[in-house]
């Protein structure tokens, strides 16, 4: 056991996003850009060239007016636990240079920018397109460099980056707890920027293993599901919806199959504990 594990029990940080509450305002994206020093260019028309760690998708039920319904799906990195819940996330197992790793104590999938050499195999492996490549060197508008977050390193051209669940905030909270002689950090001491920015409180964040954290119950709710569960990537980002058509948009179903046939999202996870 590593030293780290001695004073912090293994956690599984995760997120629950209530799609019934999300209005698609995009505050989470703005919060993320600012917090993580994510660069942008003058023309961001092509979203497949944009560095968005978190992107809000708009989906509809495909029906004509007046039956049209719209839903917004914010999509960060899913921090996949991997097929057997042991950290072999699709991306981690393929990286040839160990530039992305699964952090056992927290379950966060890290990205080491100075180690990544830009082969992009991880991007090919990630079914959620959560990984973004720096096609250009970052250029900040005048003076903006002064406002960059000193806790997050900026990235260079030619490497991959992605959502880290604001891991630097976890480190800060842990440092603070250590100085104050505490072993544990409280639920509200570690919250990612997107969860804080959301005006409707659609994003809840915490330790999925800890019954005292809000996400514990929420992720076990009947309304909970994850994206592309059939791929067995075991994401730690859950969604809530009361609409069955939204559920159908979250995974692929053969003719005659329906989301109702699937066991609740948390079953897969509890099975391994």
């Amino acid at each position: 056991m590593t030293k780290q594990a001695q004073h912090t029990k293994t956690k599984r940080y995760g997120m629950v996003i209530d799609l019934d509450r999300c209005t698609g305002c995009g505050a989470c994206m703005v919060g993320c850009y600012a917090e993580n020093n994510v660069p942008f260019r003058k023309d961001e028309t092509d979203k497949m060239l944009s560095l968005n760690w978190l992107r809000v998708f708009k989906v509809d039920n495909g029906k004509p007016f007046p039956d049209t319904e719209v839903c917004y799906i914010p999509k960060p990195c899913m921090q996949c636990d991997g097929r057997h819940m042991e950290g072999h996330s699709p991306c981690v197992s393929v990286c040839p240079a160990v530039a992305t790793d699964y952090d056992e104590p927290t379950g966060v999938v890290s990205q080491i920018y100075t180690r990544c050499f830009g082969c992009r195999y991880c991007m090919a492996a990630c079914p959620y397109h959560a990984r973004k490549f720096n096609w250009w060197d970052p250029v900040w508008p005048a003076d903006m460099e002064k406002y960059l977050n000193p806790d997050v390193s900026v990235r260079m051209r030619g490497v991959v980056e992605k959502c880290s669940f604001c891991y630097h905030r976890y480190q800060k909270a842990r440092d603070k707890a250590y100085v104050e002689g505490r072993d544990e950090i409280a639920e509200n001491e570690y919250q990612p920027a997107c969860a804080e920015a959301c005006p409707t409180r659609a994003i809840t964040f915490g330790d999925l293993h800890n019954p005292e954290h809000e996400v514990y119950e929420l992720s076990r709710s009947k309304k909970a599901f994850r994206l592309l569960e059939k791929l067995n990537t075991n994401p730690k980002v859950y969604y809530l919806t009361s609409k069955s058509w939204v559920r159908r948009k979250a995974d692929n179903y053969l003719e005659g199959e329906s989301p109702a046939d699937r066991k609740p999202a948390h079953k897969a996870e509890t099975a391994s504990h």
Partner: protein
Amino acid sequence: MTTPAIPEGVKRCSTRKFAIWLAVVGAVLLWGVYAMFLVWYKGLNQTGMNDAYGFALWIWADLAVIALGGGAFFSGFLTYIIGKKELKNIINYAVIIGFICYSSALLILALDIGQPLRGWFIFWHANVHSMLTEVAFCLSVYFGVLTIEFIPVVLENPKLDRVPFLHHLSHNLHEVMAVFAATGVFLSFFHQGSLGGVAGVLYGRPFSFREGLLIWPWTFFLFTWSAAAVGPCFTVMVTWLTEKVTGKKLVKQEVFQLLGKISGWMLLTYMIAKIADTWYWAVVTAPSKGFALMDFYTNNPVYGIWILIAELVVCGLVPAFILISRKGRENNTLLLTAMILAVIGICINRWVMVLQVMAAPLLPFQEWYMYMPTWQEVATTILPVAYGIILISLAHRYLPVFPQEKELNPGN
């Protein structure tokens, strides 16, 4: 006109004609080199790739040239280990073609990474669980082996052969060539396979994901097998092209036919395995992830079911049946058509296993992703072809590559 640098007893074109030829191909090469420097200097924004297409034309080119360069390891295996003496007449050329293919693959890989100066991290910080790590190691080491196999051919140049040490070195290398060839076969088995594994292990991508044996998905074995089957076809194809360009017969027809026969049986067995694999994937693997076969072949402008038929039937079973029949092999046109079809088939397979994997949408609210390479990508992909032509021209002019050339072209 014969200068001492040209092997004895064979005829070569005039220096002037040769220089013009080199200049023409060299111009194409320079165009590619210019694009290469643009990519290194300005970065990968010079390409048509994006976050959906992390892998694109270059990775396809890599997989394709390595599969086609497989002629070197498989002919080496047949010549030195199985002991097919007739193949001694083409093995030199197979090695040269392999050398060109592998050096090109390494060059393209060096272009394809976002931080080329960190390329060595793949060795230094190796993640032994990654298929790409396996590829990188085996590929580089095997390239070393190919270089060792190439050296004695170079040393047979009349001028070099006069240096006593080089003369002995060439002789001694020949003596232990079987050891190098065997190592080459071992390394090739793994890197050809792990190239297949690259796509096969992606369990987040139902289009390419395959079950398998231990840590190796079925694509691992399929890639090795297909490279061994089609590599020799490519060797024959290039030899035939060389004959057309030089206007001379360089290798006896029997050698082509022998390679054709071996390729034919390899191809047929490969096709059986490939069809079984495709069937299992279509009815078990993909449906378990919520995909029906036709989901992968509809709703997009390019990838229709035609591509599967082209790969498996037109460029798979058809050439296999031509090559295993004696009549097919003895008819020169049929033999070559079959080989060219097989080469196209393998290129389609590698294309599908890279580009179509990236194109197919995963979330139901996403569309197919389409991609168009930029001229820089195209130029850098043509670059190795030009480089290959130049190296082949030089090798043919100054080295005794084809042992049967003198016999087949008496009057020179």
